[in-house]
C-alpha cells in the first residue's frame, strides 16, 4: 500500500458562542508516499484546518482520517502526540523555534521527542542542518538568524527524524521573495529525494513547486 494518509468525508465545525461555523464541509483526499501537494485558496477557506487534521493536531467533527491505514480520528491525545513526534514533520509560518535553544539544539529537541537521544540525536541534527546549508550557523540562537535561516532551521527540524510526512503551513508567509524562492526550491529538492510534503500557501510561485495544487473554497476542495 502506497497510501500514507487518507481522509474520508471530513467536516470541521467550530462553535463560536452560540453560532456554529463550518470550516470544512466534506473533504475526501488521499496522499501517497512521495507526493508533494500544495493547498491554496483564499483566507478562511479551511486550508489550515485541513492541514491540522492531516497533521493529527486536531480531530474532525465528522468523517475519518487514516494515517498508514489506521483510523486516527478516534485516537486519544497521547497516541496522536506519538504519531506527530515520530512520523510527521511540521513547518510553521512563524518558524516556531525555541528561543532559548540554538539551531542544533532546536533540531535535536525534535529528535529527542521522537525517541532519538544523545550523540545520535546531535549527529542527525547536524546532518539535517548540513542539508539545509546551515552548518556554519548551528550554534546560533534563533534571534541571531535571518528569517530565511530560521525557516531553514525549522525545515531541518522537520526532516531530521526522517518523517513519513512533512506539513508546511505558509512556510514562506514571513519571508521576502528571494528567501521564499529558496525555501520553495528546498522543499522541491526534498520531495525529489522522496519526501512526502503537503504545503498550505498563498503564494502561487511557491505552489508551482508542488506536483499537485489543490484549490479550496468555502471548506471544500474546488478543484
Amino acid at each position, binding site marked *: 500500500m502506497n497510501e500514507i494518509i487518507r481522509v474520508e468525508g471530513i467536516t470541521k465545525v467550530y462553535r463560536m458562542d452560540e453560532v456554529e461555523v463550518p470550516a470544512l464541509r466534506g473533504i475526501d483526499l488521499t496522499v501517497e508516499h512521495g507526493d508533494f501537494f500544495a493547498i491554496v485558496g483564499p483566507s478562511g477557506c479551511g486550508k489550515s484546518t485541513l492541514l*491540522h487534521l492531516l*497533521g493529527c*493536531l*486536531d480531530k474532525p467533527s465528522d468523517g475519518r482520517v487514516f494515517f498508514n491505514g489506521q483510523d486516527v480520528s478516534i485516537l486519544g*491525545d*497521547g497516541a496522536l*502526540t*506519538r504519531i*506527530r*513526534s*515520530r512520523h510527521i514533520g*511540521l513547518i*510553521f509560518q*512563524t518558524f*516556531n*523555534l*525555541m*528561543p*532559548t*535553544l540554538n539551531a542544533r539544539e532546536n533540531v535535536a*529537541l*525534535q529528535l529527542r*521527542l*521522537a525517541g532519538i537521544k544523545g550523540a545520535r540525536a546531535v549527529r542527525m541534527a547536524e546532518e539535517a542542518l548540513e542539508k539545509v546549508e546551515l552548518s556554519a550557523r548551528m550554534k546560533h540562537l534563533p534571534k541571531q538568524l535571518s528569517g530565511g535561516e530560521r525557516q531553514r532551521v525549522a525545515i531541518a*527540524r522537520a526532516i531530521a527524524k526522517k518523517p513519513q510526512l512533512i506539513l508546511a*503551513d505558509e512556510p514562506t508567509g514571513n519571508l521576502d521573495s528571494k528567501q521564499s524562492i529558496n525555501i520553495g526550491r528546498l522543499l522541491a529538492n526534498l520531495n525529489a529525494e522522496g519526501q512526502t510534503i503537503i504545503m498550505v500557501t498563498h503564494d502561487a510561485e511557491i505552489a508551482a513547486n508542488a506536483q499537485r495544487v489543490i484549490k479550496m473554497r468555502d471548506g471544500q476542495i474546488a478543484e
Partner: protein
Amino acid sequence: MIDIAWKNMWTRKTRTILTILGIAVALELVIMMTTIVDFTESGMQSELAKYSGAGQIYVRSQITAGIAGQEFPPITSILKEEEGRQIIDEVADQVDMALTTPLFFYQLAPPPYPNAPLEALLVGLEADKIGAYVGEEPVVKDGVFAFSGADAHEVILGPLSSSFFGEPAVGDEIQIIGEPLTVVGLIEGQSLEDRLTSNVVLVPLETAQSILGQSESISAVLITSLRLDNINALAEDIRADHSKVSVLTQEEIAENLDTILGQERMFFNMINYTVYIIAAVVVFIVMVMAVTERTKEIGTMRAIGASRWLVLRTIVLEAIMLGLMGSLLSIPIAYLIDMGIGYGLREVIDAWTLIQIVITATILSALAATIPALRATRVNPIEALRYE
C-alpha cells in the same frame, strides 16, 4: 528535559536571580526561627533535667485561674515575707534548709520576643542560698558565686542580663532602679542556653526588698524537699494549711514550662509556615508568568510531539531548580546574618534542620508549580501556533 528547564531559567536571568533571592531570604528566616526554637527547647530541656530530682516546690500567691498558671518564674506573685517564713518553719523538718529560701522576682527588662524569657530578671534570695534557684552551682566566668552579706549591695549576672547591662566587669558598679550595685560574679553560658538562669540578676533578698521598697514582701518560697517521694505529700500539707497560696511542685513547673515552650513553638511555627507559603506563592507567580509568556513555545513543543506529561515535567523541574537553589542559598545568607547579629546560631545549626528546610522548600516549589504546569499541559497547540 533538565537542560531545557535550565536554559529557560538562564535566558531569563534577572527574573531567575530575583526569584532565587526571594526564596533564599524567606527561607533564611525559617532557618533562624527553627534554630532558635530548637536551641531554646534543648536549653529548656537541659534546664529541666538540671532540676529533675531536686525535689523542689514553689509556694506563691494564689493563681488566677487560667492565666497565671502558666507563669514561671512567678514574677506577679506577692506574699508577705512573714507568711513565707512561717511556711518554711512548718516544714523545716522535711526540707533541705540550705536550698530553701524566700525569693523576690522583679522584671528588669521584658522578653525580646513574645513568649521568650525575660531579658533581665531580678532574683532576690537569701545570700547563702544562691544555688537553690539556679540549680547546681553554675560555672562562674569571673568573680565569685557568693555574696559578702545578707544586705550586701552586690550582684551576680547571667550571660543575657550581663549583655543587657553592657557587659560589665567584676568590680564594676551597675544601676538597678537607681541603686548602685557592685558586680561580684559573672555566670558562664551561651546567650540562648540555660533559659532559666541566663537572664538572672542575682542579689541578696534584703537588698532586693530595699531597692524596691518592699521590705515585708516576697514573690515566692522555694522549698527543696529532703525526700523525692515526699514532694506531693509536702505540697498537700502546705495547701491544706494555707488556702490563700498556690503550691507548684517540680512536675507542675515542668508542665508550665512545657506550655510556655509550646506557645513559643507555635509562634515560631506560625511565622515559619507563613514564610513557606510566601516562598511557594513567589514560585507560583513566577511559574504562572513563565507559562503565560511561553504559551507559544509550549504549544510548539506539543505540536512537534511533546506529551502533556513532558510539558508538566519541564515546568515542575524548573520550579524545583528554583526552590532548590533558593533554599541552598538561604544557608549562607542565614550564616552571614547570624554573624552580623552575633547570636551564635551558626555554631549550633543542625544539619538535619537544614536538610529538612531544603527538602520542604523544594517540594513546596514543585507543588506551587503544579497548577501553572497543568495549565501548560492544556495549551492547545493549534491556538498556540496562532499566538503572536
